[in-house]
């Protein structure tokens, strides 16, 4: 199981790095899909099988396709990023800020006794039934609030994207 953790982590980090550094926007989205699949594999490894399925359905199935549509709508389907922007002053300063954050977080995590915690129970059982019961029993108000939020976001996205068409 340990080797699975390292392989999946390497895939996820590789996908994330490629997604924010590649020049071609469509290639960026493909690398982002690799990152999402790596995160979903981590969820399966952590026995959160329902979350892993949701991750693949929503992120790989919906968000990645949405980003691809946005690229096609804004770049006349070429999908190539504009002028050269890598390895400038801005790139180095942003990378330095991110590296500083990562190093500080690593120090903070390793100084906490929680960092050496090992999993208590590792029984291979599905938690889907428990999640379903909890959603309709104790958390039904939150579920309805999320439903309203998603409806509002859907209508808002359509209104924002259509505004200019109606004027012209």
């Amino acid at each position, binding site marked *: 199981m340990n080797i699975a953790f390292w392989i999946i982590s390497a895939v996820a980090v590789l996908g994330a790095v490629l997604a924010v550094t590649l020049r071609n926007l469509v290639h960026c989205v493909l690398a982002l899909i690799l990152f999402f699949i790596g995160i979903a594999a981590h969820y399966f490894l952590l026995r959160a099988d329902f979350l892993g399925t949701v991750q693949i359905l929503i992120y790989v199935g919906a968000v990645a396709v949405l980003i691809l549509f946005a690229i096609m709508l804004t770049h006349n389907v070429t999908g190539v990023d504009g002028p050269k922007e890598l390895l400038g002053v801005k790139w180095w300063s942003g990378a330095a800020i*991110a590296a500083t954050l990562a190093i500080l977080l690593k120090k903070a995590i390793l100084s906490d006794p929680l960092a050496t915690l090992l999993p208590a129970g590792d029984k291979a059982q599905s938690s889907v039934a428990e999640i379903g019961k909890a959603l309709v029993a104790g958390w039904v108000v939150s579920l309805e609030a999320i439903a309203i939020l998603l409806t509002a976001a859907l209508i808002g996205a359509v209104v*924002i994207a259509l505004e200019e068409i109606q004027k012209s």
Partner: protein
Amino acid sequence: MNIPLGHYLILAAILFAIGLAGALTRKNAIIVLMGIEVMFNSAILNLVAFWHYKHFAVPTAQLFAIFAIAIAAAESAVGLALVIAVYRHYKSVDVDEMKELKG
């Protein structure tokens, strides 16, 4: 699986830093949104790791993760609609060119 919790936390911290670097350095607004998605996912990975190591018996943390994923999906839909609206106005998605309100 005998990986300590710290490994997952450090992995999530590294992924968060990569997403932050992407959101800070790239000019294209769509890639800035993609960096934000990477940061979202690393935060949710933290949540699921804490659930697995500390509260494996109750599924509450998974519900929080599901709600966070739903909110992230709504955020990315509205964000991409804003990118398209900005593109119609400026004919560009370069975040450095959106400076009409700059003081």
